[in-house]
């Protein structure tokens, strides 16, 4: 009995030793020893998650934004999201993926080795999901690339020429989104510093929020801003969009675990929790501040909670998700109420929700990330690692500044090519008729 117990202890000890050693050697070394094999469950989850993220953009974001504009601009607003999805998808296959995730060139940009997804096949990549085909990762990331420039369209809603929207989104995707993605997710310089961004708080939300601020300032206000009645024309449509966003975010954050595993579960749990808390927090603050709880408030709060928890999901416990949701709902509400004082017309509040939410989320990740939740992550300030918080502050600052400068330059370039705004008469007529010769409701 005693001998067998000892033997068992030895066996367990050896197994633990092997596990620890393999952990220390890391995925890369492991990969060189044995060819990586795609796991069917993980692959299925990432493929489904890609479809979830597609639904966030179309119809999710398209309806969310479409309901918020006036009757005469709903089709044009929807069209912007759909066209950006198509343009960025093709660009991503041809250049984008390779530049963002291709072999690192000096920490700044990916190489051209994977142009046209050549060399990106069914074999898993050791860092980009060792249990899923490399192409599945490229597809999943394609959806992220498409949603970032589409988010910005809310800032210049109801007044931008369609040609300039498409040109801007295409150039912005390659010049701003792709490098940022490389720096944070593609092994670039911020990744090497230890930046944590689980599903795109900086890469997507801060970058689009910062770009939105510049767009709103460069394009100027809508005709009649502050005097005309510009209330949302169809809040049930916006709520339907919110539903698709909330639903899709399970794939956005859950899929970022790149497998059907415990990290995906904890990411989805944190995502849903933060959305629910964000919705309640926004609605509650509004109730106290304005006397009535509103449907637009509860929908906006949910999206604020979702955007804010994005970088932290997968690194945090559910209780921190409640805290993040609460701060997101209240912080983003304050941001949109105060925007009037700054005098810019960020029509659909991209800055207040995605920019502010993204920054809160990236900083919160530096506070409450825990290796107990995700051993591949890092401990935050609250778990005795102030270094991570410093890196997260840097990530937020770099992303904001890079996106703002890049956006400004691209806007000036596009302005010189096609002009940015529609004419005053076209704006009064509405973009649906003036840009597309169509009406949503006839």
């Amino acid at each position, binding site marked *: 009995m005693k001998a067998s117990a000892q033997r068992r202890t030895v066996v367990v000890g050896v197994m633990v030793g092997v596990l620890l050693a393999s952990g220390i050697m890391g995925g890369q070394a492991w990969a060189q020893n044995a060819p990586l094999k795609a796991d069917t469950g993980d692959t299925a989850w990432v493929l489904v998650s890609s479809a979830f993220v597609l639904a966030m953009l179309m119809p999710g974001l398209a309806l969310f934004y479409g309901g918020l504009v006036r009757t005469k601009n709903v089709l044009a607003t929807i069209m912007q999201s759909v066209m950006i999805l198509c343009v960025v998808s093709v660009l991503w296959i041809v250049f984008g993926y390779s530049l963002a995730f291709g072999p690192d060139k000096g920490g700044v940009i990916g190489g051209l080795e994977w142009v046209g997804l050549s060399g990106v096949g069914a074999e898993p990549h050791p860092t980009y999901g060792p249990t899923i085909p490399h192409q599945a990762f490229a597809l999943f990331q394609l959806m992220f690339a498409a949603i970032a420039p589409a988010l910005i369209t809310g800032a210049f809603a109801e007044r931008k020429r369609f040609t300039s929207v498409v040109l801007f989104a295409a150039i912005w995707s390659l010049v701003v989104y792709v490098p940022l993605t490389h720096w944070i997710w593609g092994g670039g310089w911020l990744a090497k510093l230890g930046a944590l961004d689980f599903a795109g708080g900086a890469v997507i939300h801060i970058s689009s929020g910062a770009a939105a601020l510049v767009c709103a300032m460069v394009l100027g206000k809508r005709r009649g801003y502050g005097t005309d009645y510009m209330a949302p024309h169809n809040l049930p449509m916006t709520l339907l969009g919110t539903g698709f966003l909330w639903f899709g975010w399970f794939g956005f954050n859950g899929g970022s675990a790149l497998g059907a595993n415990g990290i995906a579960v904890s990411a989805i749990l944190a995502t849903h929790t933060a959305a629910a808390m964000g919705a309640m927090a926004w609605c509650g603050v509004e109730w106290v501040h304005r006397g009535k709880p509103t449907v637009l408030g509860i929908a906006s709060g949910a999206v604020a909670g979702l955007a804010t928890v994005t970088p932290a999901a997968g690194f945090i416990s559910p209780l921190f998700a409640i805290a993040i949701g609460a701060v997101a709902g209240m912080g983003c509400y304050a941001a949109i*109420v105060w925007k*009037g004082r700054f005098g810019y017309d960020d029509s659909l509040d991209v800055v207040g929700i995605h920019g502010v939410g993204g920054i809160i989320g990236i900083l919160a990740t530096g506070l409450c990330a825990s290796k107990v939740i995700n051993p591949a992550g890092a401990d935050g300030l609250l778990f005795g690692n102030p270094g991570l918080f410093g890196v997260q502050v840097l990530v937020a600052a770099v992303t904001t500044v890079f996106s703002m400068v890049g956006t400004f330059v691209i806007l000036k370039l596009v302005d010189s090519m096609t002009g940015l705004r529609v004419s005053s008469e076209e704006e009064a007529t509405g973009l649906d008729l003036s840009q597309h010769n169509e009406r949503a409701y006839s």
Partner: protein
Amino acid sequence: MKLIEAIVKPFKLDEVKDALLEIGIQGMTVTEVKGFGRQKGHKETYRGQEYTIEFVPKVKIEVAVNDSQVQRVLETVTRAAKTGSIGDGKIFVRDLSAVVRIRTGETGESAL
């Protein structure tokens, strides 16, 4: 002859119509209108952006009657359209100089 224009709350339209039919009024014209009186409008708030909506939806009912019917119509509309709260509406009465029934060419009170 008089033309009576009653501006009432939209949800009171059916009650007013039924009450008028009961006292023998045979026809009326109804228009959806917007306006305000002492009620003023209401406020709407979207993400902290406040809009004052001055023009409130109302229904305008037009009834052409002979002079002997005027008092009864006024009483009937007032009774049927009244809720007692602000914004119940107003009734205007104007002289009607001529009426023609298009189908027959009749004029005057027989055309009412």
